[in-house]
């Protein structure tokens, strides 16, 4: 794509950013002393730091590469992703974040088992966490592969494997403290890169977004500016299904949810959501400028030629408008983004394995810190290898829509169980385990039956493959039926010690008081009162 010296520039920038993030990892790992540090950064991250880290986790390759490409090639239909990814934060903030923080300790399963004291609950939650993280990682690796292929002209398979090795090093060495600082660094870089691109695009239109939209209308056509007219009921339902996954999915994403366990109290959890929602929202608000900018300056044909679903639109835009230096910068940022997000995912998945499955199920909670550590590290390697292998055949898909599938699985398997654990008094463990399994199996199953995997032979007709319209209601239904038909009823379960009393869960999830808060007060209570 460029001359030899430009390659040198690109590679120099790359190496610099990788060294920067590795340096942070190394520095942080020196402070990573305990198991609690490894999983949740010792619970002492500040609100704005955590907000930036959430933004870093959330603004993945899907947001930066995928949405820009989707808007460049499909117009408004790509903007659904921006809207849904943002509004989803209301579900997290209003319904899930504080109760989760108040009940959980290290992982999603900790929160669920605060109420359902059963190893089957814990292992199901671990499986679901690993499956969702895997879906999400595959999307990131597909983006990474395309990017490195474009940048360094090495084959897709090698670039996927290379990224895979780097991310494994991060996580095995650094743990959560490191990924938190990487996310912060990377969120800042990503926003700077996007703002630079937006600035250059708009400077061509006298800083008037309307002029940009006018140019889109005259050069690409007005169809790019509105949603496609309804053509068939299947297509319409496909849109609804995608949007259900987008708005509910975030509340079930393990790697986002565990971020709320890294803050000391509910107030900090709230302030971190405020920070992240502003950053993420402003970023998504400029995605149409990036997408339409790419369509206008790079051209839809050139975007398709580089990656059929537009995954490289943003770096291509940087190269067209800013030359090799901006291109190198934007690509390096995208690369850092992918490594950082994937590290967060591997961490969530390997914690689920080590903490929930290995320690609490296999070892009955009796594994030492160092044994847990080793299990987490081995799991991280295994999970990375599996994701690399699964990413290899998916080179042609748009990464934002791949990520939307991870959202669909999260919305189906985790969200019904999380919501009902917090809000439904009669909910029992049979319902919780059944809901999670049914949501997981139906959503993953429908994706496999969709055109995305089976192509022409697809049985599930939604082109985007988003199963949420069917699998989310199935998840809720299974929770309900499991509770009503199976099992012993919440009251019996409580008597047998399988479930914590809902009155207690309700108070704890709403107040965030820890046992010591009350004990302390009890100790101070005057005698004979």
């Amino acid at each position, binding site marked *: 794509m460029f001359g030899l010296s430009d390659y040198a520039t690109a590679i120099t920038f790359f190496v610099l950013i990788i060294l920067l993030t590795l340096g942070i990892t190394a520095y942080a790992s020196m402070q990573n002393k305990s198991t609690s540090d490894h999983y949740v950064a010792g619970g002492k991250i500040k609100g704005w730091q955590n907000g930036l880290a959430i933004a870093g986790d959330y603004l993945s390759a899907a947001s930066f590469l995928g949405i820009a490409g989707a808007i460049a090639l499909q117009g408004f239909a790509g903007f659904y992703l921006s809207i849904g990814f943002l509004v989803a934060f209301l579900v997290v903030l209003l319904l899930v974040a504080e109760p989760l923080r108040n009940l959980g300790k290290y992982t999603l399963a900790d929160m669920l088992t605060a109420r359902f004291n059963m190893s089957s609950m814990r292992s199901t939650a671990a499986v679901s966490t690993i499956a969702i993280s895997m879906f999400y990682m595959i999307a990131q690796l597909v983006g990474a592969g395309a990017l490195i292929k474009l940048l360094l002209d090495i084959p897709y398979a090698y670039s996927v494997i290379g990224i895979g090795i780097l991310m494994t090093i991060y996580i095995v060495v650094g743990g959560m403290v490191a990924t938190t600082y990487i996310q912060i660094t990377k969120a800042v870089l990503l926003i700077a890169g996007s703002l630079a691109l937006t600035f250059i695009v708009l400077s061509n239109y006298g800083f008037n977004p309307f002029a940009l939209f006018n140019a889109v209308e005259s050069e690409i056509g007005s169809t790019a500016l509105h949603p496609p007219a309804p053509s068939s009921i299947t297509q319409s339902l496909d849109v609804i299904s995608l949007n259900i996954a987008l708005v509910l999915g975030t509340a079930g994403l393990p790697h986002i949810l565990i971020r709320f366990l890294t803050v000391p109290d509910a107030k900090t959890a709230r302030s971190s959501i405020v920070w992240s929602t502003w950053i993420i929202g402003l970023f998504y608000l400029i995605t149409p400028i990036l997408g339409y900018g790419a369509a206008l300056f790079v051209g839809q044909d050139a975007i398709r030629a580089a990656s059929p679903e537009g995954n490289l639109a943003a770096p291509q835009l940087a190269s067209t408008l800013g030359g090799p230096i901006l291109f190198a910068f934007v690509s390096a940022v995208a690369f850092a983004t992918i490594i950082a997000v994937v590290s967060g995912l591997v961490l969530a998945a390997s914690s689920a394995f080590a903490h929930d499955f290995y320690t609490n199920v296999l070892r009955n909670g009796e594994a030492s810190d160092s044994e847990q550590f080793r299990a987490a590290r081995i799991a991280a390697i295994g999970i990375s290898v599996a994701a690399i292998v699964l990413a290899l055949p998916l080179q042609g898909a748009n990464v934002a829509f791949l990520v939307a599938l991870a959202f669909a699985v999260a919305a189906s398997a985790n969200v019904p169980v999380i919501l009902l654990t917090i809000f439904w008094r009669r909910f029992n463990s049979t319902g919780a385990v059944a809901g999670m399994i049914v949501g997981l199996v139906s959503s993953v199953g429908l994706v496999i039956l969709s055109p995305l995997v089976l192509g022409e032979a697809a049985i599930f007709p939604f082109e985007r493959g988003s199963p949420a319209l069917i699998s989310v209601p199935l998840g809720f239904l299974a929770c309900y039926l499991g509770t009503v038909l199976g099992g012993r009823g919440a009251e019996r379960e409580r008597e047998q010690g399988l479930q914590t009393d809902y009155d207690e869960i309700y*108070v704890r999830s709403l107040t965030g008081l820890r*046992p010591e808060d009350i004990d302390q007060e009890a100790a101070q209570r005057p005698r004979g009162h």
Partner: protein
Amino acid sequence: MDSNMHEEWVRVGRTSAFQEYSRKRKAFLIPATIFFLLFFFGLPLLAAFTTVLNGKAVGPLTWAYIYGIAQFFMTWILMHVYVNQANKWDDLVERARHEVAEGEGR
């Protein structure tokens, strides 16, 4: 220890401060959640089944974009309204803690 703790939690739940908090929280969350879900799904429903959003609203901007951008502002505004409320509720939690310490809720 565990069963003792359980009794403590239940006592917190019985305090008048906690009851007030729980009531206020529900009174806010239920309508707010219904509102933002309706507001959110309005866009894909209108867009997927009708063409009412396809016309121009302001200059080249279609109603779909106006609605889409309105979702951003809806999110930010509702977020701040919630956080304001929730920060006030923290005082009620604090009060509930004191009420338990003073022996209420037995």
